[in-house]
């Protein structure tokens, strides 16, 4: 099951906003071939945002830890220590995910799509797999590692349990 035209357009906006935002912070993000998956390993820090209304599903922004640290240093206006950078990086990824998700809705005429607060997943061994639909992924590569946008469509009420399941890989094996 693929994306509707509307969902496809929104996801393209999300990916474009993501690359645009990183560019704004002075981070070059090289787009990599996108694809459709039913199972994928996540990067170190992932924001999950539930989308509801005219577009239903879940957005994920998965960021390599090295990139998250860089994002924290660039996002926070004050000079911060290494310890503070580590402390802020998850919140920074959450806020950036929030900004990208919101910005991607800006060309919609009606206020018919809503998004929740980011749920943060911090693990270097997490995988996501969808129950009955394939998710779309748009990866980017930077000097500090990868950044991936995912969209998992949901034809019904967007409950987290219906959208995806999280599995922690044991010794690098899939579940």
């Amino acid at each position: 099951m693929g994306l509707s035209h509307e969902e496809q357009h929104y996801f393209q906006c999300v990916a474009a906003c993501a690359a645009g935002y990183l560019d704004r912070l002075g981070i070059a993000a090289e787009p990599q071939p996108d694809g459709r998956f039913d199972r994928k390993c996540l990067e170190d820090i992932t924001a999950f945002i539930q989308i509801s209304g005219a577009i239903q599903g879940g957005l994920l922004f998965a960021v390599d830890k090295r990139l998250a640290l860089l994002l924290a240093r660039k996002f926070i206006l004050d000079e911060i220590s290494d310890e503070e950078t580590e402390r802020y990086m998850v919140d920074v990824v959450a806020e950036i995910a929030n900004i990208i998700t919101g910005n991607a809705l800006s060309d919609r005429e009606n206020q018919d799509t809503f998004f929740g607060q980011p749920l943060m997943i911090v693990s270097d061994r997490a995988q996501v797999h969808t129950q009955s639909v394939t998710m779309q992924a748009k990866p980017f590569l930077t000097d500090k590692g990868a950044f991936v946008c995912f969209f998992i469509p949901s034809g019904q009420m967007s409950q987290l349990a219906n959208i995806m399941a999280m599995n922690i890989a044991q010794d690098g094996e899939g579940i």
Partner: protein
Amino acid sequence: MAKILIVDDSAIMRKNIRTIIERGGHEVVAEASDGREVLTQYINYKPDLVTMDINMNSMDGIDALKVLIKTFPDAKVVMISAQGQKIQVLEAIKQGAKSYLVKPFEPDKLLEVVQKVLAKP
């Protein structure tokens, strides 16, 4: 130097906005992380201006704005959001916000908006 109340459920956004406001020569008198705290903080600290995020957990910024304006019709509120849809901007202005800023914004832009709103009667 104006007294500013910052309302945002993101601690790092409050931190950044505080930095911008203080660099602009104003004083941050209080912060709130929830729309429900806005009225109490406004009464306690009597700010000259409020910056208010729209997307917050328990009570969103538009609802908090309505509550504030009902009690303090002259309150000067700048709404901040990641969404820049015209319909949302118009709703905020209709409910009494003096201005609206879309994230991400340059620090100078926030200060410019703050100055313009403070200058309004």
